[in-house]
């Protein structure tokens, strides 16, 4: 005797919540138009452009020399990578030969920058998850130490303008390398500290495990790159799969997880990347050759030969590409950025479908989006 269960159709209304552009969890100025059924997300529409500053327009209206000072602002958490992408694109067109010492220095500072970027991500991600009064302070402590090193070598805390077309701009002193080594010695212990607090924390596991699962098919369809896709099991790391600069001479492996990644995997991928970066910097310090650091004269009227080039680097957020068309003059004809955040953010509506309101922050934070990188 099976009793028939009658489904009563209760009338409910969907609620539209406007999250952002000013919201503590949107990392700046993203605006999400959420259609909620209770606390379940039905539909998401991201509204971008609240930080659209016309970076590509600037590229066409600034000289090469001026613009390379500006592009640290494209992705302010990893300014070295934006500089590097532009420098590589211009060098490719121009045929500039970069001295090996400069290449090693580029790798070193970039990996340092990757660490600072991931540290900031770690802090803000835990804020997103609600641990806003304790943990986030610890990653920032180490971040400040790296910033001191950056300041010493580049003159600025965040906007380095250190990697230039043709090389790097300043040669570090030996003491700087010593300081860096000291930092590298103590930093693994700090990562252990973070992991002690976070990795196996039951609430953290509950919030991140099996949340925001990114399947390979969806990821490929949207062109997702970076730690997001590596944690989904696709070993796409430009440093290994399409090595540039001196990465072929350095020993490290691509970090992937052999399954479909959830937010916890994305967290873990970044933790492992920080450890990996330490090893890469160590190798660079050991192998650092002597010699020149600049292959092209830096001056206000600098020119790049005519032609077009595309170059990409593996930034902390994914493949950061730079498409440059030069007419041979002092300015570019067209600058086009391929920003990892912009492409990775596109999967957000896909990931948010059917998840509860609180998971928006867990998922959105795990993609690691920087809004100037999205809006330019």
């Amino acid at each position, binding site marked *: 005797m099976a009793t028939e269960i009658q489904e009563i159709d209760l009338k409910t209304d969907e609620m539209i919540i*406007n999250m952002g552009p000013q919201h503590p969890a949107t990392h700046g100025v993203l605006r999400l138009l959420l259609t909620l059924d209770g606390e379940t997300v039905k539909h998401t529409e991201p509204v971008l452009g609240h930080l659209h500053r016309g970076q590509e327009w600037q590229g066409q209206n600034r000289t090469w020399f001026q613009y390379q000072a500006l592009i640290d602002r494209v992705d302010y958490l990893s300014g070295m990578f934006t500089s590097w992408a532009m420098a590589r694109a211009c060098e490719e067109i121009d045929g500039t030969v970069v001295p090996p010492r400069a290449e090693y220095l580029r790798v070193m500072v970039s990996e340092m920058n990757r660490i600072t970027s991931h540290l900031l991500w770690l802090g803000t991600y835990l804020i997103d998850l609600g641990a806003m009064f304790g943990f986030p302070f610890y990653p*920032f402590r180490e971040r*400040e130490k790296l910033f001191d090193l950056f300041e010493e070598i580049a003159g600025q805390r965040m906007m380095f303008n250190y990697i230039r077309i043709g090389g790097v701009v300043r040669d570090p002193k030996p003491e700087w390398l010593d300081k860096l080594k000291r930092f590298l010695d103590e930093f693994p212990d700090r990562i252990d500290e973070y992991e002690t607090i976070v990795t196996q924390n039951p609430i953290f596991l509950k919030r991140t495990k099996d949340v925001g699962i990114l399947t390979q098919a969806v990821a490929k369809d949207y062109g997702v790159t970076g730690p997001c896709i590596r944690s989904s099991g696709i070993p796409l790391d430009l440093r290994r799969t399409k090595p540039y600069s001196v990465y072929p001479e350095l020993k490290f492996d691509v970090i992937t997880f052999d399954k479909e990644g959830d937010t916890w995997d994305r967290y873990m991928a970044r933790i492992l990347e920080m450890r990996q970066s330490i090893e890469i910097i160590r190798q660079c310090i050991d192998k650092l050759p002597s010699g020149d650091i600049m292959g092209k004269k830096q001056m206000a009227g600098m020119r790049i030969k005519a032609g077009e080039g595309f170059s990409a680097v593996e930034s902390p957020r994914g493949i950061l590409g730079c498409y440059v068309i030069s007419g041979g003059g002092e300015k570019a004809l067209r600058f086009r950025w391929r920003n990892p955040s912009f492409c990775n953010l596109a999967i957000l509506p896909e990931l948010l479908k059917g998840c509860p309101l609180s998971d928006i922050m867990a998922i959105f934070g795990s993609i690691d989006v920087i809004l100037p990188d999205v809006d330019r």
Partner: protein
Amino acid sequence: MSQGNMSTSAKPNTNPVVPEEIRDSVSISSIDFMIDALGQMLSPVLSPVANLARSNSVWPMTFGTSCCAIEMISVGMSAFDISRFGSEVFRATPRQADMIITAGTITRKMAPALITLYEQMPEPKYVIAMGACTITGGMFNDSYSVVQGVDRIIPVDVFLPGCPPRPEGILDALLKLQQKIRTENYADRRKKLYAQTSVRKVDYDTGRPLEDLIGVVQEDTNAALSSGQEAIGDVAKGISPKAEEAKTVATKPVAPKVEVAKPEVTSPEAKKVENTKDEAAEKADDKSV
């Protein structure tokens, strides 16, 4: 954050031309009027107390758009520690904040949000314009989408230059702001309760100032656009009208300057009238640093 959530109701001195949804969305509860009279009376006694309390507990809002926001986070962290000055209580909602640090470039699309946030903050409210972008537009000075100076849309108390400013700079700006707050008069500050709105409103859908747009709506759209395009690099107009002028500017019929073929010729005259008022307003307006 919460614009669009609140319905609006009529305010006594709002011009009917201003669309419903962008009107000031707050009202003051009636008890304030009683306090007002009392405050006038007790001002000499209250001022020192109020200033001490206000200057020592400036709660910032978590408003950050770009690079400067990261330095704003840094200043709350261990190395710089804004908590020593009692300002580590970053409130997410404008209703509970005293100060807004406009950390990062303000674009035309973001400007309406910033204006709303500013107007949602309860008096006394202070603004620190942080970074070159918010002071003049900075490196993006000539970009098509950047508001060149946040003082064009909201009144600013302290300007903090740098790109981005160091965290020590923020602490310095905070101390300057505290000094400024200590010179205030309680009764004078209370008078600003209703007047301290934004300098001008910006339309979200077109990214243009509302004062222009009202004229456009009344007159011909195309004429307005052509006038906007021809005005490139032309007459240097005065700096934005200040707080007290906001409402009158918004309501001023800007239409006449649109209907003429070369509107920027007529606009300086119209502007001049405003500018004289501006100067008076500017004198009254408080700007330190």
